[in-house]
C-alpha cells in the first residue's frame, strides 16, 4: 500500500508505460476497497436520511393526501397556496417571535446561572442538578404539569397572581399572553442545558488570565467579565445561540399539550401547523411543502453555525 503514497514527481521519474498502468490499477483497487468499506454507511444514510428528505421534497410538488392510493403532479401549487394562507404567516411570525424570545432569554439566564454557580464554594453540584432537571425530564410530562399550574381554578400561578390583584385567568387561553407563557416555559426548559455548556466554557478559561488582568490593574468583577469572561466564552455563546435557535424552531410538545395552536392561532407555530395539516387534515402534500420551508430555516442556521463557529470565534 505504501506505493500509493509516492509523490507525483517521484512517480514520473521512475515510470514507464507499464509501471504507470500498474500504478493506476493499484490506485483503482485501493479506491474500490475504500468505496466498498464505505458502502454500508452510505446505504443507511441514503435510506434513513436522504431518502425521506427527497420524498418530502417530491411530495410537496404533488396533491398526495395520507391514505390515498394515487397522486398527481401539481408543480408549485402547494407553495402558491402557502402564500395565500394566513395561518402560515401567523405560524411563521409566531415561530420567529418564540425563537427571538427564547434564545436571548435562555442564553442570558443560563450564563447568569453558570456564573453564579461557578462563584459558589459549596453546593455547586446540587445547584447544577437543580437547573439541569428540566432538561432531563420529558417535556410532554412537564407540559402537563405546567397545564395544571396554569389552570385558572386551582393552578398555583393564576392563584398566586390573583393574590397580587391580577384577574385569576388561565393565561394560556388569552390571545395576548398564550405565546409569552409558552416562551417562558421554553426558557425554563433550555436554561439548564445552556448553563451546563457555559459552565464547561467557564472552566476552560485559564486562571492566569484573571491573575494577569488583576496585575494589569483590572480589579472589579465588571472589568473581569467584559475583558476576559465574555470574549473567552464567544465560541460557547455562538454554539448556544445556534443550538437553542434550532431547538426553538422545533417547538412542538408544549404547543401540542397546552394550546393546540390556539387560542385564535395565537400560538400556532410552524411544526404544529405541519402536524395539523399532515395528521389532522391529511393534507400530506401541503404539510410536505411546509416542511421544506422549515428545512430551509434549519439549513440556513446550520450554514451560519458551520461558517462562524469554525472560522470566526476561535482564538487558538
Amino acid at each position, binding site marked *: 500500500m505504501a506505493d500509493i503514497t509516492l509523490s507525483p514527481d517521484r512517480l514520473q521519474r521512475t515510470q514507464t508505460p507499464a509501471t504507470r498502468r500498474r500504478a493506476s490499477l493499484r490506485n483503482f483497487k485501493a479506491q474500490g476497497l475504500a468505496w466498498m468499506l464505505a458502502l454500508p454507511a452510505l446505504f443507511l444514510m441514503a435510506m434513513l436520511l436522504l431518502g425521506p428528505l427527497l420524498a418530502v421534497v417530491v411530495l410537496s410538488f404533488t396533491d398526495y393526501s395520507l391514505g390515498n392510493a394515487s397522486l398527481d403532479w401539481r408543480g408549485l401549487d402547494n407553495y402558491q397556496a402557502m402564500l395565500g394562507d394566513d395561518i402560515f404567516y401567523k405560524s411563521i411570525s409566531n415561530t420567529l417571535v418564540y425563537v427571538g424570545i427564547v434564545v436571548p432569554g435562555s442564553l442570558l439566564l443560563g450564563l447568569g446561572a453558570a456564573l453564579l454557580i461557578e462563584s459558589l464554594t459549596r453546593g455547586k453540584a446540587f445547584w447544577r442538578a437543580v437547573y439541569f432537571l428540566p432538561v432531563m425530564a420529558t417535556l410532554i410530562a412537564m407540559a402537563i404539569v405546567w397545564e395544571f399550574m396554569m389552570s385558572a381554578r386551582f393552578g398555583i400561578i393564576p392563584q398566586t397572581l390573583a393574590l397580587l390583584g391580577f384577574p385569576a385567568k388561565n393565561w394560556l387561553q388569552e390571545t395576548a399572553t398564550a405565546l409569552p407563557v409558552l416562551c417562558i416555559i421554553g426558557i425554563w426548559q433550555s436554561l439548564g442545558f445552556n448553563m451546563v455548556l457555559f459552565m464547561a466554557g467557564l472552566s476552560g478559561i485559564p486562571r492566569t488570565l484573571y491573575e494577569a488582568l488583576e496585575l494589569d490593574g*483590572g480589579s472589579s468583577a465588571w472589568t473581569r467579565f467584559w475583558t476576559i469572561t465574555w470574549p473567552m466564552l464567544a465560541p460557547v455563546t455562538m454554539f448556544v445561540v445556534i443550538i437553542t435557535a434550532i431547538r426553538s424552531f422545533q417547538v412542538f410538545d408544549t404547543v401540542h399539550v397546552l394550546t393546540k395552536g390556539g387560542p385564535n392561532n395565537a400560538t400556532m407555530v410552524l411544526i404544529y401547523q405541519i402536524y395539523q395539516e399532515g395528521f389532522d387534515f391529511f393534507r400530506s402534500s401541503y404539510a410536505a411543502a411546509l416542511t421544506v420551508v422549515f428545512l430551509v430555516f434549519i439549513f440556513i442556521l446550520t450554514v451560519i453555525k458551520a461558517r462562524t463557529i469554525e472560522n470566526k470565534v476561535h482564538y487558538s
Partner: protein
Amino acid sequence: MAEVQIRNVSKRFGTTTVLENASLTISKGEFVSLIGPSGCGKSTLLRIISGLEVQDTGQIVIGDRTVDDLRPSARNLAMVFQSYALYPHLNVASNIAMPLRMQRLNGFQRLPVIGRFLPGSATANDGIARQVRDAAEMLDISHLLERKPGQLSGGQRQRVAVGRALVRDPAAFLLDEPLSNLDAKLRVHMRTEIAQLHRRLKATFIYVTHDQVEAMTMSDRIAVMMDGDIIQVGTPDEVYDQPVDIRVAEFIGSPKINVVPVDIEAARGMAVLAGAASGVVTDPSAVSLGIRPEAITVSSSSGLAAGIVEHAENLGSEEYVQVRLDALPEIVITARAGHGTGWTRRIGSAAHVSFDGNRALAFDSAGRRVACRAYAPRHVGGKAVANG
C-alpha cells in the same frame, strides 16, 4: 521602581508548610533570582509579593509602604507569567496597552465603541498608543502589533508578555520562570535580552527560576531556596564558591559538584579520602568534601586516587571525564579536562584523579559548611604530603 522587602513570611497550604519565616530585601534596581528545586516555595513567594497569594504571617514592604492589605492591582507590580497569560482574543497592541488602559481610562471610557467618544479618552488613547509603539520598538515587535497571540511563536509571545510588563513604570518586575517554555537556543538568547533590559531600565527585578544557569548569568544576587527556606543569599560568585550548605553546593553548578565521604585523621586534622591523605585539613566535624569538576585533575599516570574511566563527554571546548574510584566503587568523580584531551577514546582504561586543595569545601553531617584549607601552600598530589 522601589525596594522590596520580605519580612518573616510564612505560608501553609493545609498541613504542608510552603514557606517558613522567609526574609529577603531586594534593593532598588537590583536583579535578584529566587532559585531552588520545584516545590521549594519560590513561586509561592513571588505570588505573595504580587498579592495573588496571601501569606499567613509576615509582611511585604514595597518602597516604604506595607502592601499586605492592598489588592494585587493596587501594588503597581508588573508580572511575566510562565504561560505568558496573554489575552488570546486581543491583538498584540491591545495586550500591551491593557495595563495603561486600566490605569488611565475609567470603566465607561473602556467601553468598546462609545468609549472612544467620551471626553478625555481621545488624548488618553493617543498617549497609550504612543507608549505601546515605544515598548514594541524596544522589544523589536513593532511588526507584530496587529497579530493575535495565537499567531506568534513562543519567543514572540514572550516578548509581548515582557512588553505588557514594561509599558508602565512598575515598582518592580516579577518574572515567574519566563523562559521555561522556550527551546534551548532561544532561552540563551532571551537570557541576554532580559539582562540587557534590566541594565537599560535600571528597575527592580525579581526572577524565579529552577535553572541555575539563568540565575548565575543574569542576577546581581541569588537567593537559594530549599524546602520553604531561603538558605543562602549572595552574588553568583559567593553562592558558587562559598556555599553555606551542601544542598546549595549541589544545586548550583553544572556538572554537579563531586561529594566524597572522608575520615578525619585525629593528629593533624587531615581529611582521608579513600584511604589516602587528601592534603586538606578540615574541622573535625567534617564528614564529606565537595570538589567542583574544574578543581579536579585527571591523569592516566599518577594522582591521589585510582579508578576506571567510566564515561567521557566531549563538549568541544572541554571534556568531562567520569572516573569510578577503585577504593570507593559507589563514587563516580566528574572531572573537567581541557579541549582535545581525548578521554572519550579511553573509556574503560585506568586513570588517576587529584584535586586542588584550595578549592575543596568541607561539610558536616548536617550538610553545613565547615572550615577547611589546603595542608601545604603548594598544589599537592596528596601522596607526597602524606609521606612527608
